[in-house]
């Protein structure tokens, strides 16, 4: 697949009295890895859920490959999504979940089962999901996001809940994604992880984009050597 292009224009969302997104504009070039970072309650997860159509925006649009996302769910064939935490139906097995998803996507061949192999999930696929540990479920969750070789991969806190070995495997997979034909968006609180993975950065604070661009140029602008410090500098209002 060719990597997807994503454009978000004027996106706004309110939950009750809370302004979660206040007119967000983001353009993401195909084949790049972009990290969305920001303090808690900055609107990261809401932004990601809006891309998937899980949250309906009050105003603004999301365009995937120049098509405005609306009620037609077909565009989601292009997207692989790994939510923050995954709970599956308790009594189904992993294999049944994979069967359901391949059925829904109408794709049975050309699947990317690399993560299933590397995470050694095969041994767990025939057990009911309620008997699996949180980490194992999270591995399945990650494997599902990559399974259909999507053009856009959306990862919400991908390494949270994974052991260091599994987190390493997943990070390597993310780094290979652009060459395998995918655009990647991920959120993270771990700045070292963002430095390791992302080429571009979207920095959200209270529903506004305060920085958007390459990770490298942010470091150069702020004169800091570590991303963590550069972010802290923006938050305290000293640099750029």
């Amino acid at each position, binding site marked *: 697949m060719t990597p997807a292009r994503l454009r978000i224009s004027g996106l706004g969302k309110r939950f009750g009295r809370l302004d979660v997104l206040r007119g967000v504009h983001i353009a993401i070039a195909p084949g790049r890895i972009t990290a969305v970072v920001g303090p808690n309650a900055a609107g990261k997860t809401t932004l990601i859920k809006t891309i998937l159509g899980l949250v309906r925006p009050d105003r603004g649009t999301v365009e995937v490959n120049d098509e405005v996302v609306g009620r037609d769910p077909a565009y989601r064939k292009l997207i692989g999504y790994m939510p923050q935490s995954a709970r599956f139906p308790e009594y189904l097995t992993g294999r049944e979940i994979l069967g359901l998803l391949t059925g829904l996507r109408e794709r049975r061949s050309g699947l990317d089962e690399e993560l299933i192999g590397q995470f050694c999930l095969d041994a767990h696929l025939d057990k*009911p999901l309620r008997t699996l540990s949180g980490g194992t479920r999270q591995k399945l969750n990650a494997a599902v996001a990559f399974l259909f070789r999507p053009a856009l991969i959306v990862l919400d806190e991908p390494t949270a809940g994974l052991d260091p070995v599994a987190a390493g495997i997943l990070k390597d997979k993310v780094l290979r994604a652009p060459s395998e034909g995918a655009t990647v968006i991920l959120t993270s609180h771990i700045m070292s992880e963002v430095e390791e993975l992302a080429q571009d950065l979207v920095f959200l604070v209270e529903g506004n984009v305060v920085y958007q661009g390459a990770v490298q140029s942010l470091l150069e602008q702020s004169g800091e050597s570590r991303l963590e410090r550069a972010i802290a500098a923006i938050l305290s209002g000293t640099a750029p």
Partner: protein
Amino acid sequence: MSTTGKVLASQLRNVARSRWILGYGLLLALLTWLLLQFGGSGERALLSLFNVVLLLLPLVSVVFGTLYVYNAREFIEMLLAQPVGRGTLYTGLFGGLVLPLGGAFLIGVGTPLLLLGGGGPGFAGQAVMLLSVGLLLTLVFTAFSLCVAVLIEDRARGLGAALFIWLLTTLVYDGLILLVTTTFDRYPLEGPLLALVFLNPVDLGRVLLLLSFDVSALMGYTGAVYERFFRGAGGSILAFLMLGICAAVPFFLGLHWFRRKDF
């Protein structure tokens, strides 16, 4: 297979494997068997069974449905991240609840009825009436449960609302009717009472069931009014139609909210 079919199949597999539904079916079978064995003559046993159906079925449907949808929250999110429309998923959820609940009821109550049989001359008709009213009540209260779970975010409050709906339709509503009759006992009340009955699915079910027996005389003067109204085929059809509407209204309301919901 259509997308709805695939979603439905996975829901069915999931619900059918939960012990809840098995326990529900077994409980119904045990109750039916006990009542038929020890509940006196066939007709009296069936009458007791009617009361069980009118109380237990709404409770189990509305509570099981509500809890199931809350538990399936992440799974719903996962499916909505796939190329699956919201209407499709909603229909799949509804079917995935109604079919196992209805199936457990049909098998649990139907099997002992078939095996033990007995009862008066109208037994077959009464049994069919019991099963149809039970199935319709399952539809109605599952639709209520979807409404509640879609509209209310908080699980504890949702469960409270589900129980409230059950209490309202099975117990409080009758108290209300009683209050109306005692307060306005100087007026001819048949018309208004008939209207009140038509607004509550449980009362509709009760009237339909009682009238399939020859016990309407037990309901006094209003019983005679019901008798006159429902005994004709038209009245019964109207009552069944109204039960259908009682299921359709919450179903479509829930769908409307589900389409607009933020996950």
